[in-house]
């Protein structure tokens, strides 16, 4: 690659040659002979052999339903499922394993919180006198559940705006977060802009008015150390499939006393203590919030993914991605007409970089890149308000992970030059 001398000087990189051998799909050739350059990690990550083997081993040797039955397989399946909960609790530094609720994805986690608060008694109840605060950079999954709650309860929905540089505009924080605020929900890392948000400032303000804090960590958990105690949030949501695990498994972490006080949302098997035809009493958290047969194999897969990530180390993964992101930002800005939507620096930013390329539509950018084996995401990335804010219909987004290489950044840059020539 033409810029090999520059990329060779990057520090903090992981041994991607070794890591990539664990990911079978990364060996694929596309369109006959083009190596796959997978830069769509903010949408979903690829899966290492260790996770795939954990899934296979679960189904081949241990498959049973959990928490019921006394046979060997039922006990093994339960131990594996609950073992995954222990791994998640360790991974996020939860004070208690009972604070980890398994869901199907981050969207379900966020919907669960919104519904808990809509049905709660005082002091948590969101009603017509309440205000809910979100931000303009949220994924639709952290907008629509709050819109629904607002419409159903009459609560007022407010949001932080964005600066031209792609950061949260905190200048009116005192008008936004007030004594009426019941809940503040925001993303730790933007899936479109890549921005890492100033958690402490927002949490301090929310705490000062007694509001609950919900953090969407979907783009953080895969990429950095996530410590729910350090965040001082009340709820933290994330999804497994962006962090090497299968689809169909998500997590909601919540503070124990809240989970004890708040009402269940979905009813069914597993979440009860006793049931009569007239009424029921509920199991303690987390089971109170896990109605029905859970995604057992997927939870086991998430446990294996956490083992894999922890084996490398989240600090090292974060350092690797920071180096790749800094290199990518620098090289993207070399391209004429390319506009980064979000911070034009690697400071306080994650490994997702959105951009526009002159007036070439992102669909066309993505199609021509695909022809070269390069997978990026195009569109509004389930964050349409961000596109509206910056006056653009859509963006192209490249997003990196622990197996991404400087050579893949170079391939992207070469590919974008080809796109410009093609439509020039």
């Amino acid at each position, binding site marked *: 690659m033409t810029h090999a001398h520059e990329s060779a000087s990057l520090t903090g990189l992981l041994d991607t040659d070794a890591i990539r051998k664990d990911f079978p799909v990364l060996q694929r050739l596309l369109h006959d002979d083009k190596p796959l350059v997978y830069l769509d990690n903010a949408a979903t990550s690829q899966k290492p052999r260790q996770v795939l083997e954990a899934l296979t081993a679960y189904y081949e040797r241990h498959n049973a339903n959990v928490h019921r039955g006394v046979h060997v397989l039922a006990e093994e399946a339960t131990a594996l499922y609950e073992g995954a909960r222990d791994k998640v609790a360790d991974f996020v530094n939860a004070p208690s394993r009972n604070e980890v609720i398994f869901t199907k994805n981050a969207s379900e986690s966020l919907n669960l919180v919104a519904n808990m608060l809509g049905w709660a008694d005082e002091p948590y109840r969101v009603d017509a006198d309440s205000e809910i605060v979100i931000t303009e950079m949220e994924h639709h999954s952290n907008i629509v559940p709050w819109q629904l709650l607002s419409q159903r309860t009459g609560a007022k929905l407010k949001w932080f705006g964005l600066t031209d540089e792609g950061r949260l505009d905190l200048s009116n924080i005192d008008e936004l977060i007030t004594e009426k605020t019941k809940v503040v929900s925001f993303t730790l890392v933007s899936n479109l802009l890549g921005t890492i948000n100033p958690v402490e400032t927002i949490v301090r303000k929310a705490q000062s008015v007694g509001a609950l804090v919900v953090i969407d960590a979907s783009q953080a958990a895969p990429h950095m150390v996530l410590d729910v105690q350090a965040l001082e949030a009340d709820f933290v949501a994330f999804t497994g499939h962006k962090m090497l695990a299968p689809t169909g498994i998500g997590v909601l972490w919540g503070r124990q006393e809240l989970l004890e006080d708040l009402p269940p949302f979905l009813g069914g098997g597993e979440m009860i203590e006793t049931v009569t035809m007239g009424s029921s009493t509920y199991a303690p958290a987390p089971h109170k919030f896990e109605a029905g047969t859970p995604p057992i194999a997927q939870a086991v897969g998430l446990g294996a993914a956490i083992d894999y990530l922890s084996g490398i180390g989240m600090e090292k993964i974060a350092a690797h991605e920071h180096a790749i992101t800094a290199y990518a930002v620098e090289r993207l800005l070399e391209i004429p007409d390319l506009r980064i939507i979000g911070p034009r620096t690697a400071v306080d930013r994650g490994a997702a970089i959105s951009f526009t390329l002159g007036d070439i*539509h992102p*669909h066309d950018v993505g199609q021509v890149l695909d022809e070269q084996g390069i997978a990026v995401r195009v*569109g509004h990335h389930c964050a349409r308000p961000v596109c509206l804010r910056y006056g653009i219909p859509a963006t192209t987004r490249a997003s990196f992970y622990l197996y991404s290489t400087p050579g893949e950044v170079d391939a992207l840059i070469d590919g974008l030059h080809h796109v410009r020539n093609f439509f020039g």
Partner: protein
Amino acid sequence: MKLDSMYQDIILDHYRNPHGKGLRDGDAEVHHVNPTCGDEITLRVRLDGSTVADVSYESQGCSISQASASVLNDLVVGKTVGEAQAVQEAFLELMQSKGQGEGDEEVLEDAVAFAGVSKYPARVKCALLSWMAWKDATAKALAQNPAVND
């Protein structure tokens, strides 16, 4: 190369120099969006008796959706509503052919260039956006003027 089967020169020409773009007077207006990618079109139809007198539009989107709107304008303006609907149905059939159809050049003219797009499921909606908007707007225009029944 596969890419050239999608981005035919005819399509790129229409993309760079779209025909009939801009909003003019019409009997009916519709706004259609492609929710997966954010492409949008506002389209107006003006009828003169049973003839499609004008199709005008403002749109934003990829080369495929922009070129498709331009070709639509070429193909339906000046035809009777019935003739234009037949062209629309032929185009829809071509786009749903999953790369198998070639299209009748007698009927579809420049629009046969979109045959390659039908191989790409993610892009078929781009090609159909303006055509579905036209179909919708025409139905509205006809409903306002029931005397025209071609």
